[in-house]
């Protein structure tokens, strides 16, 4: 099952399947966020802000618009 990173609930885990936008993909990949990386949504920022994520064990902050380009495949 595929799902956008922005669509999943806090606490859920997924594996990055692909990215929707090349420009964002290029940036994310330089930080080691790659297809195949495991992503867990830890929490959302105050003021309806971005996402606090755990990606391959690293804590990463992304904006909503950035996260909206990440397509996950959900295991369950």
């Amino acid at each position, binding site marked *: 099952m595929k799902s956008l990173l922005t669509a999943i609930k806090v606490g859920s885990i997924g594996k990055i399947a692909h990215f929707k936008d090349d420009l964002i993909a290029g940036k994310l*990949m330089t930080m080691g966020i790659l297809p195949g990386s495991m992503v867990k949504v*830890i*929490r959302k*920022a*105050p003021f309806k802000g971005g996402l*606090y994520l755990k990606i*391959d064990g690293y804590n990463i902050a992304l*904006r909503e618009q*950035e996260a909206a380009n990440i397509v996950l495949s959900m295991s369950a």
Partner: protein
Amino acid sequence: MRIALAGNPNSGKTSLFNKLTGLRQKTGNFPGVTVEKKSGILHLPDKQHIELIDLPGAYSLYPSSEDERIVLNVLINPEDENYPDAVIYVADITNLEKHLLLLTQIKDLGFPTLLALNMSDLAEKKEVQVEERKLSDFLGLPILSISGKTGENLENLKKEVGKLTGIETVGQPFYKFNEIEKTVSSNVQSIFGIKNPYRAKLFAHHHEKLPFLTAREKEKAAEIVKKEGFNDLRLQITETMQRFEQFVPTLRSAVSQKNNQSSFTDSVDAFLTHRIFAPIIFFVIMFFVFQAIYAWAAYPMDWIEGGFAAIGDFTRNSLPSGWFTDLLTNGILAGLGGILVFVPQIAILFLLISILEEVGYMARAVFIFDKLMQQFGLNGRSVVALVSAGACAIPAIMSTRTIGNWRERLITIMVTPFISCSARIPVYAVLIGFVVPADTIGVFNLQGLAFMGLYLLGILAALFSAFIFKLILKTGEKSYLMMQLPSYQRPSWRNIWRNIIDKVAAFVLEAGKVIMVISIVLWFLASYGPSKAMAVAESSAISTAKAQSLDDTATADLIAARKIEASYAGHLGKSIEPAIKPLGFDWKIGIALITSFAAREVFVGTMATIYSIGSSENENTIRDKLAAARDPVTGAKVYSAATSLSLLIFYVFAMQCMSTLAVVKRETGSWKWALIQFVYMSGLAYLGSFITYKLMS
């Protein structure tokens, strides 16, 4: 010989740099941009002296920020004044998998490279094992485990650095070109005379934004790229993927590590980045920062002011009176005092901000306020500047260096001086009594409420003008949040100390020059006038004093009052009177507006001089004097509620601070932005005062 330190943000590069160069370092800017450049001298065991440059932290040679762009520009241009002969690449040993991308790119550029595996606090506890030999063979470069904090293995590092020179890199490039890349880079190589194929590819990819290429060269590069159908974005992604695929398997077999999740960080962040608690905790922390700047700085500021007053008295009394003594006392010493008095605030703010930065909290602050600040074209980090501006705009503006996006940083700088700083308090204190009675309604003190209102007005002005700037300023550089939230760690006092020294030195040396010049100009304007008028003023003051049989102090005060009226500043004050009349100001206020450009609090002192109570330092005396002032023609009160409120509004908005302008000039790299800021802030002040006065009278 020159060696560059490169690595990702949070790799501990700066700690290593500070440890290696100690006090033998200097801070400047990279040419044309305001990104800080640190360089220093490294002494090797074989008596070689090496120039070490600390490049900004970067993830790759495909830049997302101004910092990263500098790394690219320096490393692909052999003509660049900072182009290194070799590279020390610093990587955090606990984050190796994410930290090696840039290393493989630097290696492919052909630099002799040494990989320094930096031990963090966490690595020591978590038993990370690296088979250095295996990794070194695979990467084709020497590897050393070091600690930038404790200094472990640094002597060996220096030995290895000595051997780096002149070694051409060995082995295959990490990244294998596809057919298009091969054609493009060989074309670029032959046309631009570039030896290294990967450098040629980066030329092709980045040609539009490389500052060192001429328009003609950019055209040529564009032709090649277009002809071969070089899809730069797709190729960038392919390249990045391939590099990770190359080194990740070897890395996983060479590094054994218990899980790298820091449970301490996770549990702390559950509070510090909590949806509801996070902003509250942030404001509590900022409240303490604000209080500390305010309260702690007061003592050293008093000493500095007192010290300069004492030196001034000494020179005044011991040197023969004349223009030179006057220049020394009221121009130079006053200017120097005006510079140094800000040092405690700057030092304390950067002490606290550096601690928050080193610990890892600042990244959280950015995360918490990113969305809110985006609405106003600002950055999460802008909150820190805006809050600390409540003490003083100068350190606040200097703190914006941590904002990576140029546009967001510029907007922050432009709006920060709207926040009411501590120098506005004396002005508010003197004037507020003319507008609001000292009554209370319920538990609220009316004057206190008015004070708060002025502060709120400043905050609103800052946010409103940020919003306007957001609409006006366009940028090619997109803004991103995506960032790592590093694990919390103990701060390095050496780094903090370095940062404080850098910031204080930057202020005193760079902004100080400007402040000094303006201070001397203002001294000249207030002390000199057409010589005849000045002589007449003095003699008429003396005869008036005799007629009224005033004592010595009162006579001196009267002379000072008449002289400032006859001075160039007095003339200026009178000549701008028609312009400020609609705001309800007379020429006396005009003089104070001009002199208080040195610093807002000078307003009170100038008013005291004009009303010939210069020897009194007491705000209450000044307030009584102002309250009694009447218009000589109409007999109406000069400081009516309308005029006083208009003046208060003026001081909320106006850029009445030469030191801030000097700092803005330094931080933005040109007078342009300082001038724009001066004009729109003064414009808003004029408009605000005008409307206020019209409504009130």
